[in-house]
């Protein structure tokens, strides 16, 4: 759209214009509502908090917002693909490429990751008897860095410079020679900044789990969600630094004129190796926590302890280890030779074994139990067949020679949505319905939850099942249209219908949250007849929830207490000092600074880079000068002298 202003003609794409209007409109609406309800103090409370539950809520809230955005993009993609040779709005060519790139990038990094990290924040400390995360201040910093990165990637669209090289950013397409616009710089800096936040979050999780368990909470008694968090945190700690460096090198290629990934001497394949050495563990990073959630939910709602606890733990550890040895299955068609291809084909197939163990253990947890199909359990039940479909297509993709056909087609698109939506997203929904009472003190409505579940699950299968056939009939992924002769119209058309059904399902979820806040059904500590420690503390979980500290003597300690001790956990005497909770503007301020710093690189403003660089360094000084440990020690010193 073009318009005249001050005698000059401006051009703005209508989709961007509309997005601006929508954003500003809702922004003002929210401001108005907050002001009217006089909730500024709540906002301030959340922005400056370092408490794990509130940070968890922040993660979940932002993930939901980004889910809506990337979901709208999915609907746009599906609308454009609904019929052959379609010309929907502006979404052909680059606009379409931008849509699937940001859809994929946001869904993985700013939806799947924060949904799970958010749930970890809410639940893990409570599950293991910790008073808070080990480093509350750093926890806040992790969140705000994640958000800064997410905002960078999200704002690119508003600056009419969305990344457009796919979420995998394959070089040389992603180098400045072929995509000179700022889009892929937003990608680099957005992922870099949020990646640092994620690494810090992983460190925090590991230290919390290793050092802050309640007395008697041995590793062998930990709930499986805590276990999967621990394994995931290690995967993050090892995989994300590789991404950090991959992006660091790509940044040099794009901004400082090197040519690692392109040109005569450069190696585009090296980018693929680096990306997938990170990328494959990444897909386990986003599915293993979901496994943990399902284990806890299935056991609670079947009123039985999880079947084969030890093999469940061993299985996730093995999946984590094997996850680092399979990355070439994304590169079978690159031409690395039959030896490499078959070795990686076999390691990939091997992952099916521990995954299978988990599936059967879940089934046998349900056997001989009493299965209550509450909303969280519905999601868990929907997960099993869905994920198994994703799993078996995964094994089919591992067959290297067959993958020559499958690779980069809609068959793959179907496969990874079956695992990521069927695993991660259903898992996150299960977790949200399950732990919602611990966050706010009331449940989400069951009826709306069921409507959400059925619409979403049926819509999901309608969307993605036909895509297997589209792929087998020769439809490559990342194309914005196809011809009638391609004979894939029907698959795409059905798929589009399903996508809208999923969209409606998601609206039910949002509606459910609104309704539940509007007239909350308050519930007590233990709305699900829970088995683990988090259900022994008040809802919503207070600061310093474990007072007195329980003594854990078995797996599922609360269940045991309910059976044998009238619901009272034995009390431990411990003198472990709790993490120090503070309120501080520093994390959000620092992240804002980092965001500006990134922008100064994206737009090549050298003086600003220097100024902001110095300010970033100065922040570290500020942090150590205002350190809460020093303050505590100062206050404590007088007592010592007495």
């Amino acid at each position, binding site marked *: 759209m073009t318009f005249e202003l001050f005698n000059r003609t401006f051009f703005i794409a209508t989709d961007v214009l509309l997005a601006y209007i929508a954003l500003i409109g809702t922004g003002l609406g929210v401001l108005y509502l907050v002001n009217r309800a006089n909730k500024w103090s709540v906002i301030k409370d959340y922005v400056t908090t370092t408490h794990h539950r509130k940070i968890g809520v922040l993660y979940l809230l932002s993930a939901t917002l980004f889910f809506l955005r990337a979901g709208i993009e999915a609907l746009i993609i599906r609308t454009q693909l609904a019929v052959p040779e379609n010309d929907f709005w502006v979404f052909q060519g*680059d606009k379409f*490429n931008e849509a699937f790139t940001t859809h994929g990038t946001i869904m993985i990094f700013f939806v799947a990751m924060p949904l799970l990290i958010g749930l970890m924040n809410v639940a893990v400390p409570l599950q293991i008897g910790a008073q808070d995360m080990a480093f509350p201040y750093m926890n806040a910093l992790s969140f705000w860095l994640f958000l800064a990165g997410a905002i960078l990637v999200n704002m690119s669209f508003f600056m009419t410079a969305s990344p457009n*090289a796919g979420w995998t950013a*394959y070089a*040389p*397409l992603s180098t400045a020679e072929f*995509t000179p616009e700022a889009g892929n710089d937003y990608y680099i800096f957005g992922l870099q900044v949020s990646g640092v936040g994620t690494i810090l979050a992983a460190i925090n999780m590991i230290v919390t789990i290793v050092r802050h368990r309640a007395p008697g909470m041995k590793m062998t008694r930990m709930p499986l969600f805590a276990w999967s968090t621990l394994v995931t945190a290690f995967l993050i700690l090892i995989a994300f630094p590789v991404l950090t460096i991959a992006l660091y090198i790509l940044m040099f290629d794009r901004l400082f004129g090197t040519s690692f990934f*392109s040109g*005569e001497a450069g190696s*585009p394949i090296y980018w693929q190796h680096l990306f997938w050495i990170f990328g494959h563990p990444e897909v386990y990073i986003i599915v293993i926590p979901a496994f943990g959630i399902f284990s806890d939910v299935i056991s609670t709602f079947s*009123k*039985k*302890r999880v*079947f*084969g*606890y030890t*093999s469940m733990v061993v299985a996730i550890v093995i999946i984590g280890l094997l996850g680092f040895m399979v990355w070439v299955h994304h590169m079978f*068609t690159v*031409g690395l030779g*039959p030896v490499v291809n*078959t070795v990686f*084909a*076999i390691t990939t*197939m*091997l992952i099916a*074994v521990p995954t299978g163990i988990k*599936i*059967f253990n879940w*089934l*046998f947890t*349900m056997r*001989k*139990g*009493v299965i209550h199909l509450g909303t969280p359990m519905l999601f868990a*039940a929907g997960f099993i*067949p869905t994920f*198994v479909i994703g799993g*078996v297509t995964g*094994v089919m993709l591992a*067959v*290297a*020679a*067959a993958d*020559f*056909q*499958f*690779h*980069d*087609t809609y068959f793959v698109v179907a496969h990874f949505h079956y695992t990521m939506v069927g695993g991660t997203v259903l898992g996150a929904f299960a977790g949200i319905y399950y732990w919602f009472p611990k966050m706010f003190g009331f449940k989400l409505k069951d009826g709306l939850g069921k409507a959400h579940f059925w619409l979403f699950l049926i819509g999901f299968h309608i969307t993605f099942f036909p895509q297997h056939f589209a792929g087998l*009939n*020769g439809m*490559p*992924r990342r*194309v914005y*249209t196809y011809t*009638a002769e*391609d*004979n894939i119209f*029907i*698959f795409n058309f059905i798929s589009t219908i399903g996508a809208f059904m999923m969209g409606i399902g998601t609206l039910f979820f949002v509606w459910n949250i609104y309704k539940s806040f509007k007239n909350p059904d308050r519930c007590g500590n233990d709305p699900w007849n829970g088995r683990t420690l988090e259900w022994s503390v008040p809802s919503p979980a207070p600061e310093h929830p474990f007072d007195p500290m329980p003594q854990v003597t078995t797996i599922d300690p609360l269940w045991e207490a309910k059976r044998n001790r009238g619901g009272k956990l034995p009390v431990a005497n411990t003198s472990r000092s709790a993490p120090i909770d503070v309120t501080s503007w520093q994390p959000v301020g620092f992240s804002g600074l980092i965001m500006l710093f990134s922008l100064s690189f994206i737009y090549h403003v050298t003086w600003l880079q220097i100024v902001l660089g110095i300010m970033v360094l100065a922040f570290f000084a500020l942090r150590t000068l205002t350190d809460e440990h020093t303050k505590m020690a100062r206050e404590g010193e007088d007592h010592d002298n007495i």
Partner: protein
Amino acid sequence: MKKIKWLVASLFIFLTGCNLRVLDPKSETARDQSFLIQFSFALMMIVFAIVIILFVWFLSKYRENDQNKDYIPADEKGSPWLEITWTVIPFILLAILAVPTVSITFEQSAQVESTPANAVQIEVTGQQFSWTFSYQNGVETVNNLRLPVDRPVEFTLRSEDIIHSFWIPKLGGKKDLIPGKTRRMIVTPEETGTYQGKCAEFCGREHTKMRFTTTVMEESEYEQWLQEMKEKIE
């Protein structure tokens, strides 16, 4: 009207599951791949069926109802025998799958090392966003590939700019074109006809349009066509 015809036609495909290009091979390479797909699918259906049966069975039998809702089930820790069973059986299934996987993957890669003597040589160059094919006698075509039937063809794949991927679903799987590198691929089309070809690696704005048609023709026709084309340039 035409749309409806296509709709009915593809609905039919949907229901029968056959005729999908990848499963309708016109060369040995593609046939082997199609076999692998069907074989792995069959094996995996065994697993899938078992899971679904257990799932439906347990879920219906042990679902909460008025009789059992206050009943507290006995805790069971697990069962070594069962756990060993569902560790070992998948191993066996995967071992069965691994054999043809390895052999066919090797076979399809080894072919390239030993070019058959009577092979037709075609140089394929990918660039944003089209395909150039050069034939042995110097003829070049764009987005239009012609092959003789029943003779091995050796494609030499190169890229002018960024990564593309050369794919003719009915004749075989894809192979990436990496800038600065040369890749080779050998297939023997076994049936005359016109097949779709596509770029399978996202390569920028008009990646969607980076398609070509492959016409497999009788050898005599092919030679004649080459001759005509050559005369045209001269």
